[in-house]
């Protein structure tokens, strides 16, 4: 419950935050909503001698919709995301997924950027962003660079972000067609036993394109290219769904924990994916 002592900074721009990251190296961390980092600090599982609060950096806030391109500032909260009617119209899967993340209080504080950057395979947004083929923009001392969400995750808590970089935005094209985020969890606020993000486009009674990503079924989110490919050209019937599930099961690697043994998680993964595909097809 009692975190170790730290020095606290509240810079008003990104340059100020990066300068602090450079100055203090491994001893510094940025804090966004604080709803993963503070719990870890309270358990003394994260030691952060220099804490850099991003709340005063205006450029990290806001949802920008420009034509078909959607850009979410890293400090956009889950609550703001759910509250945005414009975003719900353009990319309804985000709202559906965000309502399955945590609880109201956590959603007022927890941010999209923190969820995406955290690197915990339990987080829901990483798989969702892989499903949407989102771009993650990072700013560091030498400027900004963009990396695909599908390339961002290396292992549990290991991502492509360098220690002196800040995740500034997540952007993607407004998805087309039907969507679903289906999550099996033990209770409100729990990370998924298994979850599936699906976007698919229907044309002339068959699947024209499909993107499928899975949450908390490996040490990273899993974008299953093969599962999406298994649906393309089909009428999304029971056999097609079965093929997609089989393809997905080849791509995941769950581990046993108190959410269940591996065999159960694989079973649950198949169920949530089949449900998500069916719901997305109905909406397409």
């Amino acid at each position, binding site marked *: 419950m009692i975190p170790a*002592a*730290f020095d*606290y900074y509240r810079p008003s721009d990104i340059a100020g935050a990066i300068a602090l990251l450079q100055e203090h190296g491994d001893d510094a961390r940025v804090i966004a909503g*604080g709803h993963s980092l*503070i719990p870890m600090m309270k358990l003394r599982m994260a030691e952060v001698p220099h804490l850099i609060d991003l709340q005063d950096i205006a450029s990290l806030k806001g949802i920008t919709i420009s034509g078909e391109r959607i850009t979410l500032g890293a400090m956009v909260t889950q609550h703001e995301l759910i509250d945005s009617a414009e975003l719900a119209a353009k990319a309804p899967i985000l709202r559906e997924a965000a309502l399955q993340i945590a609880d*109201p*209080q956590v959603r007022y*504080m927890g941010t999209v950027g923190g969820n995406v950057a955290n690197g915990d395979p339990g987080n829901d947004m990483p798989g969702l962003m892989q499903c949407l083929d989102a771009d993650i923009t990072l700013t560091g001392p030498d400027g900004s660079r963009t990396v695909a969400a599908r390339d961002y995750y290396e292992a549990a808590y290991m991502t492509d972000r360098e220690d002196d970089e800040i995740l500034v935005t997540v952007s993607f094209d407004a998805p087309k067609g039907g969507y679903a985020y289906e999550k099996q969890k033990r209770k*409100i*606020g729990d990370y998924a036993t298994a979850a599936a993000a699906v976007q698919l486009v229907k044309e002339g009674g068959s699947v024209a394109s499909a993107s499928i990503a899975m949450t908390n079924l490996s040490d990273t989110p899993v974008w299953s290219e093969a599962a999406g490919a298994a649906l393309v050209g089909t009428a999304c019937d029971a056999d097609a769904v079965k093929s997609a599930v089989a393809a997905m099961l080849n791509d995941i690697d769950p581990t046993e924990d108190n959410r269940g043994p591996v065999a159960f998680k694989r079973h649950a993964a198949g169920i949530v994916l089949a449900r998500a595909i069916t719901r997305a097809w109905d909406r397409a």
Partner: protein
Amino acid sequence: MADKMHIKLKVNGADHEFLAEPRELLIYALRERLGITGPHVGCDTSHCGACTVTIDGKSVKSCTMFVAQANGADITTIEGLGSPDALHVLQEKFREHHGLQCGFCTPGMITRAVKLLEENPNPSEEEVRFGMAGNLCRCTGYQNIVKSILAAAAEMNTVKEAAE
């Protein structure tokens, strides 16, 4: 030890200034420094919501915010919602509908419920349950908490209509 910071908070309309280590959790600043002991601590993993307060218009678990982050904030706790002689309608309805037993979750429940009804003045039972899902209760089984909140919503809406 890190240097102490000069912290300013407005709590229930009153200004407070003090020196505190940045790592001090807001819940402890409220309870131990300012004597505002309505918000409680029920867990160490940010689940239970007993510490819920309203900060700059958001329902926040004050165990998951450092006092440094809250510097400059405007905070409302259960103590700011009513008085024994003039209860807030939610306090009144929790009493009337037996929405509490031990009372430990109640300050967080009511503070959260006030915000819920601000955002959704006419919620369904399902919306109340979902909107209160960040607050755990060991005693009531939730049923009477839901009744209390729905009753408060109905009364607030009646009062609002009468005023219009």
